[in-house]
Structure formats: C-alpha cells, structure tokens
C-alpha cells in the first residue's frame, strides 16, 4: 500500500490497479517457464518450417471458426452493422475464401473485427477489476476471465464436440489456436523482453492498452496523452541539435 500522505503515490497505486502483484508475478514466472520450454520452441519451429502463406491460411481458418462467438457478441453489444459485417464475412470467406482459408472479405473492405464476451461486458459498463495473471492463460482481469469462460461455453463447435464425446477436438483446436497466437507475437514479445527493465510491468501495460483498443474497436488509440504533449514544443530538445551530445 502507498503512503496515504502522498496523493501522487495513491493515484499511481490506483492506476497500477494490481493488488495481487506478488502472486501475479509468481504465476508469471511459472508461465514464462512453460512458455520457454514448450510454447515458444513449438511456435518457432512452426514459423521456421511452415511458409507464411500457409500460416496466414490457418490463422484465417481459425478466425472464421470464431464467427458464432463474434456474432453473438456483436448482437449483445447492440451493433447491428457489425453483426451484418460478421455474417457477410463468414459467407464470403467460407465460400470464395475456401473454408475460411483466405480472408477475401478483408480485401473487399470488410476487415476482421474480433469480439469476445470480455469486450461485451466492458461495453455494458462492467469495470475490468484489478489485473490478474492467470496460470497458462496469461494476463487478464476478472472481467476478461469471465469473458474467457463464457466464450468457451458459448462456442457451438466446443459445445458440439464435448456433447458428442469428441472433447479431443475442442482441445486440439484450443492448442492450435494457442500456437497460432504465440507465433503471431513471437517478435513483439522477444523485443519487449529484450528492451524492458521490468518485463512483467511492460506486459501488464501492453495487455491493458491492447484490450482498451479492442473494446473501443480501435478508436481509443487515437486519444493523445496530454502529459506527453504538454512539454512540447517548449521542451528544449526541439531547438537544440543534440547530435553531438552523446557521440
């Protein structure tokens, strides 16, 4: 807990919003171990062995399978336009795009707009709650954890495979999804791990920013942090050629 006499420290504590930080860090350490020994090597092998076009095809196929969950959440968020776009995307990509392997719809000006129940809860005004590091699933919060469970329970393919004794099908899909995601983030996570002083804090920040971006369907990223532009252009570095400073 911060010193209550230091209002700035209190504000910072509220913004960080991670009261379980010590536990979260322990779980993060375990997750990193699993990642380093299992997930990352598989993702790297997959990236090196399979051509980019084939990997994109699989990503598109997996995204197309998510259509029912996306549509459900379009409807729950009251987004009629997005619901129609999701249906159009599915029809175009499943036929012209050959079982969803090619994202033809995106080329026709209907880009993917992924939705999930965590985003729906946010649209409904449910607060995210504190930061959580879930075992295996990684960064989250109570709102997104509920979302994760609801997404799994409302996915028709998951329901069908578990109800007809084909649980291995649902599990295989989850596994392939995980590898697909891990491969997509290989470079970014490598860079962040390399350049950050506190990898955990960087991941916490990146997760929150990404979720805010997804919830607003990409609109929030356009807000400018006033603190960043406040000192500009009065900041001395605009007028001083600093080239010689450190060479």
């Amino acid at each position, binding site marked *: 807990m911060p010193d209550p006499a230091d209002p700035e420290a209190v504000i910072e504590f509220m913004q960080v919003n991670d009261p379980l930080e010590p536990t979260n860090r322990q779980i993060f350490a375990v997750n990193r171990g699993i990642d380093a020994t299992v997930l990352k090597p598989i993702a790297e092998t997959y990236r090196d062995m399979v*051509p*980019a076009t084939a990997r994109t095809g699989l990503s598109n196929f997996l995204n197309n399978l998510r259509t029912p969950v996306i549509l459900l959440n379009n409807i729950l968020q009251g987004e009629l336009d997005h619901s129609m776009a999701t249906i159009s995307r599915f029809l175009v990509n499943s036929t012209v795009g050959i079982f969803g392997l090619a994202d033809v719809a995106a080329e026709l000006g209907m880009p993917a707009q992924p939705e999930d129940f965590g985003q729906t809860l946010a649209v409904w005004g449910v607060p995210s709650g504190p930061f959580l590091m879930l075992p295996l699933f990684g960064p989250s919060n109570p709102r997104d954890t509920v979302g994760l469970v609801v997404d799994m329970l409302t996915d028709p393919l998951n329901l069908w495979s578990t109800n007809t004794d084909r649980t291995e099908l649902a599990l295989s899909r989850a596994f392939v999804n995980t590898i697909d995601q891990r491969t997509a983030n290989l470079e970014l996570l490598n860079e962040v791990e390399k350049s950050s002083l506190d990898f955990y804090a960087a991941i916490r*920040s990146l997760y929150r*920013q990404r979720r805010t971006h997804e919830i607003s369907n990409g609109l929030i990223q356009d807000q*400018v942090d006033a603190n*960043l532009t406040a000192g*500009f252009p009065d900041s001395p570095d605009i007028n001083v050629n600093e*080239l010689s400073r450190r060479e």
Partner: protein
Amino acid sequence: MINRFGLVGALIGFIAFSGLSFSARAAEIEEGSRQFIQAVADQAIKSLTAKDTAKAARVTQFRILFNEKFAVKSIGKFVLGRHWNKASEAEKEEYLGLFEDLMVISYVDRFKSYAGEALSLKDARQENETTVTVFSEIKRPGGAKPIRVNWRVGTNGTIYKILDVVVEGTSMSSTLRSDFGSIVRQKNGEVAGLIEELKKKTTLLKADSQ
C-alpha cells in the same frame, strides 16, 4: 447603427477568418507531418537496411536518426512521469543519456521493420495545437493482416519530432512509462535506483550486440 453593424461585421469577419486560418494551418501541419514521417522512413531504409551493415554501424546510424527525429527529452521526461521533478540535474542528465542508449540499442531492429519498405502512409490528423497523428500500415508477408502504426508527431510548424509510436493501440511511450515506473516503485521511489537498472540493462545489451 451603421457603426455598430460595422463592428459586428468586423467581429464576424474576424471569427470566420481565424477559423479559416486555423483549418488552413491544420492542413499545413498535417501535410508537413506526413512528409516528415515519409522522410524518416526514407532515411531509415537508406541507413538501416543496407545488407552488409554490421549491427554496430546500424546502431550508430539509428542513434543519429533517433536524436534528429525523436523528441528524446520530451519522451524521456514523460516516461519518468512524476519522478522527473524529484530527480537532481545530474540524475536527469544521466537518465536521459541511458534512456537514449536503451532506445537506440533495443529499438534499432524494431524500428527498421516499422519504418522499412513495408510502410504505407495513410492520412494525418491534427490532435491539438502542437500534435499531429500520422496513420500508417505495415504490410506483412503471406497476406497476413497489416499492422496499424500511428506516429504521434509534435510540431511548432517548422520543426517536427516523433513523440510516440502507437502499434495496434499500444503506445511505446506509455509502455515505457509503466515499465520504468514499476522499477522506481521497487527502488523506494529513488530515480538513482532506476539509473542503476538502466546501466545494467544497457551494458548487457551492448555486450549482446557486439
């Protein structure tokens, strides 16, 4: 009466004119920012992607580009947040130098992929009096979905500098601020503690890139 109408008319004229000149300035600095980012990309392609360039040479090239094109001090100050005011002048100086080192060594390759041949600039939008966002996309191999990169440019109309790079909604400056803020908290709010960690990190990265 005539006088009064004249005054109101002049006032309306003035308001209309200042509105007009404001939007003209907006268009001007929006276009200026686009051209600035294009120039940065051209320079990056020229100096960072030559095949035979060794890592050390690329780092030197990127250091020049980073200092020329980024508002290094503004970003460094923002990243340190409320701790900036607590730091002594000597600490600020040392911190900014190490911050520059960290950025230059660890971002040289990432920057190359953002500002390389795959960059395609979209439109630009004025955010406030001194800030413009330039929108862009990075094309990816294999027909994968392009990555959206927004360049936050600070300008006074003549000088342009990058304040932030926002990749798919994640801001480089904000992430650094959380990262560094966490370290300062762990060091009991001492900027000196952050400087120690920065030293360790940059030494490690320098050894790696040899």
